């Protein structure tokens, strides 16, 4: 039969042009934005990446991990180790963070993949806690109290002088701009890679495994291999993001870098609010989260309580998140992955 297959929609074509425009504006932003805005954008981009990566393993892969803080923490600590022990440049040491997280994700997967449902989640959390306790023993990096990147290091990061000259700003502001650019580039790479993965053959396998593990095996999908691949890739990328976040803050402690609240609870909140199992979800979710964070973060535990209530309300009334509501009303898909069969007109 004459037929062809497409994933493109009118909205996705428009979205592709809009994305290119946004990326260009994004890179030019430091020329006219305030330092506070650059810092906010850094926060948004890094949380967005963590949310996309959690969405990849949980929303697409069905692996509900609550141990992602392990990868953020180990990535950040490996970066600090690279700088303070081996004298690497912090930007270069970010890659160490990725590989350290990759190395950690192997034993975590070995352990957690034996567990199912709630036990999988608990398993990942246990591994993260154990890692935090071990890292807190690392004297060279400040043990339980943590440490900072010394001024002579942060002042000499690759490219900082160049950025400072370019925008005529101080070194601290230049470091923020550099971190922001790296975050923007990494975020484009992350979303692009996930989108490419979902549209590839592996994307079909992943969706099949998510929907029905047994049926997936019965049509020849190697469910284990797909889960391993996705889990390791997400671990590596999460480690890079963790290293980047702590390159920007330049100060680290085990409790902050391995915080389950910041790097997993907030991240899950973003995905659930925005819409799980779709690339648009975390983008919408992170904007909502950032709005709430800027308006109410000063209220401390009441703020956390309110986040919990909002998450529950959304889960009950919009189980597929805010983007799910939008998509149901309008059929909009900015990153379509569905393969539609188009038959010739008769």
């Amino acid at each position, binding site marked *: 039969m004459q*037929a062809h297959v497409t994933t493109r929609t009118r909205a996705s074509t428009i979205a592709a042009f809009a994305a290119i425009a946004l990326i260009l504006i994004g890179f030019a932003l430091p020329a006219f934005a305030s330092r506070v805005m650059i810092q906010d954008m850094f926060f948004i981009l890094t949380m967005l990446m963590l949310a996309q990566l959690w969405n990849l393993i949980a929303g697409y892969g069905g692996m509900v991990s609550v141990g992602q803080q392990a990868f953020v923490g180990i990535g950040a600590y490996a970066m600090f180790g690279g700088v303070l022990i081996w004298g690497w440049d912090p930007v270069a040491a970010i890659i160490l963070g990725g590989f350290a997280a990759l190395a950690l994700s192997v034993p975590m997967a070995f352990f957690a993949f034996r567990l199912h449902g709630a036990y999988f989640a608990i398993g990942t959390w246990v591994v993260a806690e154990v890692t935090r306790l071990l890292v807190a023993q690392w004297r060279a990096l400040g043990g339980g109290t943590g440490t900072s990147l010394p001024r002579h290091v942060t002042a000499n990061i690759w490219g900082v002088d160049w950025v400072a000259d370019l925008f005529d700003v101080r070194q601290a502001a230049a470091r923020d701009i550099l971190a922001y650019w790296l975050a923007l580039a990494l975020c484009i790479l992350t979303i692009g890679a996930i989108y490419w993965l979902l549209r590839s053959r592996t994307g079909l396998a992943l969706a099949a495994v*998510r929907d029905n593990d047994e049926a997936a*095996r019965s049509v020849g999908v*190697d469910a284990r291999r797909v889960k391993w691949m996705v889990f390791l890739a997400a671990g590596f990328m999460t480690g890079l993001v963790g290293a980047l976040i702590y390159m920007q803050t330049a100060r680290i402690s085990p409790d902050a870098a391995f915080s389950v609240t910041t790097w997993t609870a907030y991240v899950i909140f973003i995905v659930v609010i925005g819409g799980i199992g779709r690339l648009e979800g975390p983008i919408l979710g992170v904007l909502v989260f950032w709005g709430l964070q800027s308006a109410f973060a000063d209220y401390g535990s009441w703020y956390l309580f309110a986040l919990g209530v909002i998450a529950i309300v959304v889960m009950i009334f919009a189980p597929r998140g805010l983007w799910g509501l939008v998509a149901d009303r309008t059929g909009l898909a900015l990153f379509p992955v569905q393969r539609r069969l188009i038959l010739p007109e008769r």
Partner: protein
Amino acid sequence: MENVLVLENVKKAFGALKVTDDVSLTVPRGQALGIIGPNGAGKSTLFNLITGNILPDAGRVVLMGQDVTRAPAMKRVRMGVGRSFQIPQPFGGMTVFENLLTAAAFGRGLPEGQVSEDCADILLRIGLLPRANQLAGSLSLLDRKRLELGRAMATAPHLLLLDEIAGGLTEAECHALTDTIRALHGEGITIIWIEHVLHALNAVVERLLVLDFGRVIGLGAPDAIMASKEVREIYLGIEA
């Protein structure tokens, strides 16, 4: 003629319950075999043992002359074993077309582009083409059953295992499905079909196997089997 499937003294128990009790069976290429037996007799379990969804406690499973007793389900699909589930197991979040595409791409080990037209042909054949771009989770029971058949066909099986694919359908729906299955048989595909709807089964199969409490209690030509006293006793309550 070459044998597509050989089971040698296969045994499986769940706890104390012997669900497959020393079953031996040989299915030559191109044959259509029907399996009947009361609920809980171990019919679906026998399929799971053939596909590799569960592994036997003892005995041997041989497919296309190759011992696959411990081989994973995935490998057996690639060797040409396609199956439908008694309770439909669609990939609910994917479209009907994507369900077939996944089965074809992974079951045959080919790139998506090489199998998409074939998937469209199968959809046409099973009457699901108008629903190609609809989410599989939103299908009616009949369409889910059709999808089970279509997805199994998409893996390009030499041996097709159908588990109560006509159960719960109306007379007319059952008829259309039977026609498709008979046509597949006509193309030389070996078929094993578990079914309670006996007239549908008997319109297709050349041989009938009766299973009760995990044991083979009858195997032979459908007429002879249906005439035997043991089988009539079991089936008195099922089909008058």
